[in-house]
């Protein structure tokens, strides 16, 4: 039984982690493509149009990866989490089906039209198709977050005698207080990924002296959007989410901040340190006094609850994992703001191209936003444990009753093998597109 839960969780965690490497780029990237296409319509400069078309090729590759790794996500609700699907399907199935109907058709149809239909459509309609691709990908994020918001903070339901969750208020699914802050935070984080990738490819072109004209545009656009989005991710949207956590999952808040003992008269904020569960403290801790109270309550002296204020039975299952996920997200987010602010400053002083050291840094920043995005999701998901539906249904009660541990390990291993292969080929394909670069002669 323990084995089964472990393999089921590992398989979902592995496949969703791999899957989310792709949508996190496409959602943000689609906005940048719309920006390029709009600039082209406005100024008539060919460089903008070839940029839009170049990035739509990257988008398309990532979208394809998102589709083929996304189908297993939906299927796994049924294959590995059958009991959860049976009990909550009439609610979370609703938002997931809406994603399919309202988002994927829109996104996939107009992606095809954007890629292959420029000549037949004309420039204005080509812009519109780009905009609809953007719309589709953001609608998708909206419904996925709506689904997750219900699991984090269930609303609009009743529990029937047979244990099933029945929907009682459809609108409540979308007025869930968890939804809008989480959605904005997630979309802006996706824009951070897209901006950093764009700036990094620009830096790559400039450093290797190929496609330099395009490189300049990518770098500038990436840095400006990167600064904007990385700031907005932290404040106000990150802040809103933290306030939701403290309101609806207070024990999770204490665990992710690493506050073991309640702090009266103002709580320190922990920057670095390793959770020591045995002694209920952090080892090698570096902290700044009173700042957590200020960030959370706008008051340096407000008390903050520690884990010792809660029943240990209700603590998140994996406190060190949750603590690290949260701190990695925040730490990388802060580093990204610093890099992008430096870039924007040098851009303003027109010194960015000469600052090779910064171009190298930006180039090697590519993994950071991906890791930060994933760490953010790990924070949300580990923070919810041991619950599948917060405070109502335990994760262990959601697995498929008839699937044996041997079978779920078999498929987990299969997914690992296949996705390693898929990852290698994705990098090859992406590398080829980037190496070739935009082709202004077709613009």
């Amino acid at each position, binding site marked *: 039984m323990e084995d089964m839960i472990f393999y089921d969780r590992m398989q979902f965690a592995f496949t969703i982690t791999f899957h989310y490497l792709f949508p996190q780029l496409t959602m943000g990237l689609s906005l940048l493509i719309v920006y390029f296409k709009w600039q082209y319509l406005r100024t008539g400069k060919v460089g903008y149009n070839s940029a839009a078309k170049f990035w739509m090729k990257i988008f398309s590759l990532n979208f394809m990866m998102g589709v*083929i790794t996304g189908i297993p996500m939906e299927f796994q*609700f049924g294959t590995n989490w059958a009991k959860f699907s049976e009990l909550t*399907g009439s*609610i979370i199935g609703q938002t*997931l089906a809406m994603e399919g109907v309202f988002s*994927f058709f829109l996104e996939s*149809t107009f992606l095809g039209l954007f890629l292959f239909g420029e000549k037949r459509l004309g420039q204005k309609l080509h812009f519109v198709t780009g905009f609809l691709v953007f719309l589709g990908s953001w609608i998708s994020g909206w419904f996925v977050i709506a689904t997750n918001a219900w699991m984090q903070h269930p609303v609009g339901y009743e529990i029937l005698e047979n244990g*099933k969750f029945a929907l009682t208020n459809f609108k409540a699914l979308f007025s869930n207080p968890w939804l809008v802050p989480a959605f904005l935070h997630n979309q802006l984080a996706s824009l951070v990924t897209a901006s950093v990738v764009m700036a990094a490819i620009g830096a790559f072109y400039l450093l290797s002296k190929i496609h330099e004209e395009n490189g300049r545009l990518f770098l500038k656009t990436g840095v400006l959007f990167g600064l904007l989005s990385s700031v907005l991710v932290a404040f106000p949207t990150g802040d809103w989410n933290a306030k939701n956590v403290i309101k609806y999952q207070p024990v999770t808040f204490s665990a992710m901040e690493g506050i073991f003992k309640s702090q009266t008269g103002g709580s320190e904020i922990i920057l670095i340190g390793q959770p020591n569960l045995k002694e209920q403290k952090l080892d090698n801790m570096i902290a700044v006094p009173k700042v957590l109270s200020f960030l959370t309550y706008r008051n340096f002296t407000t008390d903050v609850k520690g884990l010792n204020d809660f029943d240990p039975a209700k603590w998140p299952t994996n406190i060190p994992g949750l603590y690290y996920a949260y701190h990695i997200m925040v730490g990388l987010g802060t580093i990204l703001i610093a890099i992008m602010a430096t870039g924007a400053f040098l851009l303003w002083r027109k010194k960015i191209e000469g600052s090779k050291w910064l171009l190298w840094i930006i180039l090697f920043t590519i993994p950071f936003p991906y890791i930060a995005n994933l760490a953010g999701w790990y924070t949300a998901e580990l923070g919810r444990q041991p619950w599948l539906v917060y405070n109502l249904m335990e994760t262990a009660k959601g697995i*498929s009753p008839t699937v044996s541990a041997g079978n779920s390990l078999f498929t987990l291993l299969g997914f690992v093998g296949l996705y390693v292969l898929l990852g290698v080929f994705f990098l090859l394909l992406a590398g080829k597109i980037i190496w070739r670069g935009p082709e202004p002669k077709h613009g």
Partner: protein
Amino acid sequence: MEFFWYLILGGMLAMYMILDGYDFGAGIIHLFFAKSESDKKAITRAIGPYWDANEVWLIAGGGVLFFAFPVLYASAFSGFYLPLIMILWLLIFRAIGLELRGLVDNQLWRIVWDKAFGISSLLLALFFGLALGNIVRGVNLGEVKNGVSAFEAHYFFLPLWNATLDPLSDNLGVIDWFTLMLGIIGVVSLTMHGANWIIFKTNSSINKKLKEVVFKLNFVLLALVITSLLTWHIVKPKPFENFINHPIVWIFPVLTFAGIGGLFRIKGFKKDGTGFLFSSVYLIGGLFSTVTAIFPNLLPSTNTTNPSLTIYNSAAPNYGLSVSTPWFAIGIMLVIMYFVIQFKVFKGKLDDIEYGEH
């Protein structure tokens, strides 16, 4: 309300079968009949711009199944665990093959990915046929042994096969002689369907040969369909009860045979799209005849202890089903609009579309 969502689900499945069905079929044709590089390219171009959009129907259909019939979703997806995960792997493998063949200009490279693409297409067609066979035959719901259920009444787990391949045995497997027959019907049907799509959408040099292939396979298909009808009663007594009680549903078998009949005249069709139209009619007729035969069951039970899963006992509570009707109506109208736009923009042959040469 349940019946309404049953129809919607059936419609979405049919759309998926017709659309991704030609993708699989094109893959099979690619495997067996496309010899020259230009023909192979023509085939990948004829499905390239469409295949991921076609798979969206699977995602959307899965979503509707999830919220409208959560009990069936939970039961069937966990019970058919292995074949479903393998379908996922094949879908991924197929996509890798299709997208990667153009990456490196090397013959060995292309051979590997062409085979990956073709073989996974073939296996997918087989698996979807097997799936239909399993739904007709039913499963041991609750895993009953000696009159006692080992699990809750609607859960089960099927291995891929049992030693005897017997659809009537106590230890059922996904593959037995009956489901395998439907699997082969799936392969033959989709091969013809894919050939018709290629004829419709390309000017490749094998189009003439493909018409010959469709013509010949049509005899095989007819023989298989008749055999399946003659053996149907072995796995399911009284297979025609619904047809006798509600004569209107005879429309589905009529469509099936109209499709097959029409395809015998493939060599004489004036328009390239006519063959595709007939194979679509045949596929819709075939799918709906099959599910009509077991209606109102969605997944029959092979034991007498636990009831079959029907559209009534596996559906979601009424509020959820009725509140979703308006959004679904809007959504599906939008989808139809997108498809009209897409077909208008991409009408005609697709040979000139640059695909797979990122």
